């Protein structure tokens, strides 16, 4: 076996060392944020915190947890993420199948695929989009967080490329048995595509969890904000250059430690879900088949 050779063992040691170094490099900022969230306010404001908390305090977490708006926004985020991912998966899965066919089999394929690609590149801008959302009655509706993001051309393209990797023989066998396209899609394609579905689910989840701008623009009531929007509104500093300032306000704005706590809590769910999904799709892949 190759991994028993001396050369490979030496390589392996260096390789792991190098990868660990990269991994550490990546988490330094997050540790910094974590350290700030557990530090006292005065130390954080003076930028004295490095990678370890200064004057340890859990005050920031208490404040965050006592904020009902924060907790509520987590629920809304979970709801939109679950629903949004489900809708995206269903629509993407369905759309990718015909698009993965050859032009000779599905003659309108070119038209459809350009329809998708074109939509990815051109957009009308914020104002017309807002007008459409308004005419559809989606302003101030929870569904505005779910529906407009349903089709992501990038995901459709990923999915259809996964489909193309599925051996033709499988499909042909099914069709000979008299199965229609729908049956083929759900009986044959679905079971072997779990890993790719997991990948797409992950992309979609991350997208929904981190989206904030839609909530801000299309929801009229800040109590309905998802977490990312909520975080955005508390963390981002205001453009203060032209505002009349008073010490009371500045005191409230500089909530360095509370912000850090919220950033951390906000990233937590994805951090927890990710390793789980990762294992799931690596496992599922072994069922997967060779490409081309």
């Amino acid at each position, binding site marked *: 076996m190759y991994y028993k*050779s001396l050369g490979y063992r030496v390589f392996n040691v260096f390789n792991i060392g190098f990868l660990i170094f990269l991994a550490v490099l990546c988490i330094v900022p997050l540790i910094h944020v974590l350290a700030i969230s557990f530090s006292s306010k005065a130390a954080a404001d003076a930028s004295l915190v490095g990678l370890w908390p200064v004057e340890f305090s859990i005050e920031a977490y208490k404040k965050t947890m006592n904020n009902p708006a924060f907790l509520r926004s987590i629920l809304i985020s979970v709801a939109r993420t679950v629903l949004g991912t489900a809708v995206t998966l269903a629509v993407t899965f369905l759309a990718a199948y015909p698009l993965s066919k050859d032009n000779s089999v599905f003659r309108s394929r070119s038209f459809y695929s350009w329809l998708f690609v074109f939509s990815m590149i051109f957009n009308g801008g914020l104002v017309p989009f807002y007008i459409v959302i308004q005419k559809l009655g989606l302003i101030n509706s929870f569904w505005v967080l779910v529906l407009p993001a349903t089709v992501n051309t990038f995901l459709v393209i990923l999915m259809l490329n996964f489909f193309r990797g599925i051996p033709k023989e499988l499909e042909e066998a099914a069709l000979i048995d008299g199965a229609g396209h729908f049956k083929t899609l759900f009986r044959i394609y679905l079971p072997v595509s779990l890993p790719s579905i997991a990948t797409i689910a992950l992309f979609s989840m991350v997208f929904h969890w981190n989206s904030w701008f839609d909530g801000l623009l299309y929801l009229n009531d800040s109590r309905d904000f998802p977490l990312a929007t909520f975080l955005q509104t508390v963390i981002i500093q205001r453009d203060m250059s032209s505002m009349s300032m008073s010490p009371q306000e500045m005191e409230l704005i500089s909530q360095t430690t509370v912000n850090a706590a919220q950033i951390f809590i906000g990233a937590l769910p994805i951090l927890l879900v990710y390793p789980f999904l990762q294992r799931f799709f690596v496992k599922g892949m072994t069922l997967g088949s060779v490409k081309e």
Partner: protein
Amino acid sequence: MKRMKKTWPFHVMLLPAVICLFLFSYLPMGGIIMAFQNYKPWLGLSGSEWVGLDNFRYLFERQDSMQVILNTLVIAVLKIVFNLLIPFGFAILLNEVRKTAVKGTIQTLVYLPHFLSWVILGGILIEMLAVDGFANRILGMFGVDPIFFLGDNNWFRFTVIISDVWKEFGYNTIVFLAALAGVNPTLYEAAEMDGASRFRQTLHITIPSMLPITVVVGTLALGNVLNAGFDQIFNLYNPLVYEKGDIIDTFVYRTAIINGEMGFGTAIGLFKSVISMILILVSYRMAYKWAGYRIF
């Protein structure tokens, strides 16, 4: 075999996606006409004054616009290249780690920065890359003079690209790892039988099996060739690096968003879309012609 010839199921399957596209992409595209107007919100699309190509002319009239477009291209292209190459290499290296726990942990960790927004990272980076900051202290140990990473025109682009790669490479690895996991193990077994070294296996099995997905991701990324990363630049730049750091989006932000010149903003958007469209068309053709590979 007759059922196979029927294509109506295909149209049905595409219907939900097409409805969504129509509602949320194609309807709003009507707004593109703003690019040719001196758009005033209270006059609406039908009432605003037509100005032809004035909005585009303005972009090219500015003394600095060529520099700004060049900055955008350089930064974006380098980002695209490194954001392909580094995750590609990283995925291969990570794939060699056979201890699942170690592999999983590393993968989870490198993935973290993706979740921090540039607003937060901007603050942290400004601190860490300061002249007396963390990065320079480390370099100082090797006898390197302090580098003004964010305030020196020669270093700024480098800093922007490296920090972007650093933020995104872990996340970009996902697609490649998925492709790697999909490689048929029997291929390796056969190679092993033939006595091929791991390096040769990588060269002849692993890399070729990743190429299709690389082409897909690369082609799609070309659509971003005029997106150099507004959030990042906006949070990191300062007047000292305007020369090499100002990009189209920051420029649009200063004129269009702050001054509310929406016609101008739309014009820039259209300009960027057209360029992206051309690039995607070209690369689509190239991928098809040379690699026989259809992306979409």
